[in-house]
């Protein structure tokens, strides 16, 4: 029943033996020890489980792990490189764009995915892009401010 699945995880070649029908979310959390990716609803409505797959923001809670064979997965743990926070992470700290922090990894990964596609996002485009991610504490306005700051940095810098 178990299969070998090879993929790139946070920059490293990875091979796991697992039930291919398991969801990526629980493989990451339980098998690979990457618990930054959160369970929030299990049905794709809240966005807490968002990761990057081939540089695109994707919900991991309903995705069979077999789908990622040969692909590149980046989780919140792999976003900072060489001890340096990703501009979105840095901007979340700067703007205090979180409260309980539980939706935060999903928010950051969704924003990072949006900025890969288009670093010149307008404020309205950021709102639209995050519309399907849920935050209950009400950090919304600071999250938008943070992503706007990150967009400016990424557009200007690299």
């Amino acid at each position, binding site marked *: 029943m178990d299969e070998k699945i090879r993929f790139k995880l946070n920059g490293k070649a990875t091979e796991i033996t697992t039930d291919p029908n398991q969801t990526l979310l629980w493989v990451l959390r339980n098998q690979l020890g990457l618990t*930054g990716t959160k369970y929030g609803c299990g049905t794709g409505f809240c966005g807490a489980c968002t990761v990057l797959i081939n540089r695109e923001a994707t919900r991991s809670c309903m995705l069979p792990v077999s789908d990622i064979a040969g692909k590149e997965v980046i989780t919140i743990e792999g976003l900072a490189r060489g001890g340096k926070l990703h501009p979105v992470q840095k901007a979340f700290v700067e703007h205090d764009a979180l409260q309980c922090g539980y939706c935060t990894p999903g928010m950051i990964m969704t924003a990072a995915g949006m900025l890969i596609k288009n670093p010149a996002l307008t404020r309205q485009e950021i709102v639209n892009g995050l519309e399907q991610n849920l935050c209950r504490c*009400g950090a*919304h306005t600071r999250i938008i401010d943070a992503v706007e700051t990150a967009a400016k940095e990424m557009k200007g810098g690299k």
Partner: protein
Amino acid sequence: MKKTELNKTTEATPEKTNGMQRRSFVKLLGGGIFIFFQPWDIFNLNDLTLPQARTLTKDYNAFLQVAEDGTVRCYTGKIEMGQGPITSLPQMMADELNVPLEKIKMIMGDTDLCPYDAGTWGSQTTQTFGPAMRAAAAEARGVLVDLAAARLGVPATQLEVKDGIVIDTKNPKNKVSYAQLAKGKKLEKYLDAKPSVEEHTKFTYVGKPYKHADALVKVTGQAKYTGDIKLPGMVFARILRPPSHGAKLTTVDVSGAEQVQGTQVVRDGDFIAVLNENQDRANEAIVKIKAEYSFNELKVNDRNLFDRMVGADSRVNVIRSTGDIEAGLQQSDRIFESEFHDPYVAHASIETHTALAQLENDKMTVWAATQSPFGLQDAISRDLGFPMEKVRVITPFVGGGFGGKSAYQQGVEAARLAKMTKKPVMLVWTRDEEFYYDIFHPAGVYRIKSGIDKTGLIKLWDYNLYYGGSRGSDTIYDVPNSKTTSYGQNMDAVQIHPFGIGPWRAPNNNSNTFARESQIDIMASEAGIDPLEFRLKNLKDEKMIACWKAVADKFGYVPAKAPSGRGIGIACGTDAGTWVALIAEVKVDKSTGHIKVIRVACAQDMGLCVNPQGALIQMEGCIMMGLGYSLTEEIVFEGGNIKNRGFDNYEIPRFSWIPKMDCVILDRKDQPPKGGGEPVIIGIGAIIANAVYDATGARLYRMPMTPARVLEAMKKA
């Protein structure tokens, strides 16, 4: 909190217990200087209703440790769930102890390390716990300075403290650090008098804005919530749930579940669970159980509920009364009668109720997402037959609570499964379970009869609340004849709430403020007076008036009689000792009934504001969360069957809803600190209802104010 979870206290034996417990904490935590303390006056442990099994220390509720390395630790049963005590409490201690902020560590919500605390709710952490903790810190500083005086051979009055170092002012080279003073010591002090604390003019940290101390671990995915802990041999559990509250299991066939690879099925009466080391397989197994139920449905639903409440044989309680209602009727020139409705509302934290339980030797350790670690410890001890000292509850980061995590059923369930299987058991409630077992904000009916004289002065206020809570039901206005009456569950009569209810951010103040401030607006409009002028005319409370001046100024309020067509609505109230006034501007799409909140301004008097940054974030959070109960959130149910159990059909606020927000915190450094996590949310429903009236002339008497209800109200207008 559900009443059934608490029993009346029995006499504790304080002397014996205190000594023992203090020694056990001190033994566990190594050397240093310990200061034991409790919040005085308001937090009187003798008045608390406590579980029978708990023998309680009555003279302290938390303690500080100045450890041998100079680190200052505060051990408290309070927890961090995003509301920010992990940042604001150290600010208070740093000022009293004169140590750098980074030297202070908070140890929170661990029942083995921290003394008893009833729970984290009601905006009590800063206002009642904070001052006591500051006093303890001041006491610790006194002890350290006395030790330094002996060590340095100079009088204590000649010493000053800077960054954790005690210095002889006459000879600055003659100095000693807190770490050196604490080294090799085991000094216990119990704080029994209220010492004086630092004057606000001397604050270094308090009153300055600090960002979340836990931000870095939260943006990198390193912060550990309960579900992120993994133990060797751990299995994931799913529990068989009835389809509706009140349903009874009649037949069950678990053979399908047993076929799923690696699955263990356990059963104890109607309690049936599947366990698997893989969460997805546990999910697969649970749906393969075939179960049938008998139903004994209550004939209640979200449509007939309000009539049922008003018609019920209720327990009647006059909460407060001034003057005479009959006299009020005589003195009034015009009488207004209104009835307001408010539904059940869910907490919907993004982290669901989660717990991990491990039985090792004969000790049960439970990590849980809870606002009440000690409540859970009690429940496990009582329900599963463990002596209290054999139960330890640890609270990692909590992913949102809002009152919903004052309930801890998941922790008892995980412990029960760990006891049954002898394996570490992780239980992560699904979103469906989270809605189903939520202790909802209670639905309620609010009936008001009020009257004004010819000049627009309120002479009568007869306020009746049915089955909601009374927090925020104070009249606040200067009314000579007023009465507040609560109608609640009569234990001998028909059960009104078909499922669990409990505290929801500023419990019930949202509903009471919605009703009161709508009624005030109705009277202002009928009297032909601008709603702010009408309020000021009837208010004597200077703090409230000051909030009104601040918010009107911030908003740029221009008086007008409603409905003015502009879509501006106002409201005020008090919560957790804090005064708040708010103004909103909305746009109503008259063809669809959709409300868009454009702008919210608010001003609050919260006494001394410890962390202005944290307070501001809480105010913004209150505005955003408040939009939800005002516009969309409502539990739809038929008997015990809850129909909306997901984010697809229970809509919470989203990014496109963000209004422009202008929040003002009044400068009240000379006043004691009050609650800041809840006050602003109380007025959101009222400002929107009043703004919709101002825009359209249509009055909404029921939350949430959905497009359909707006259209219906417009037809009647």
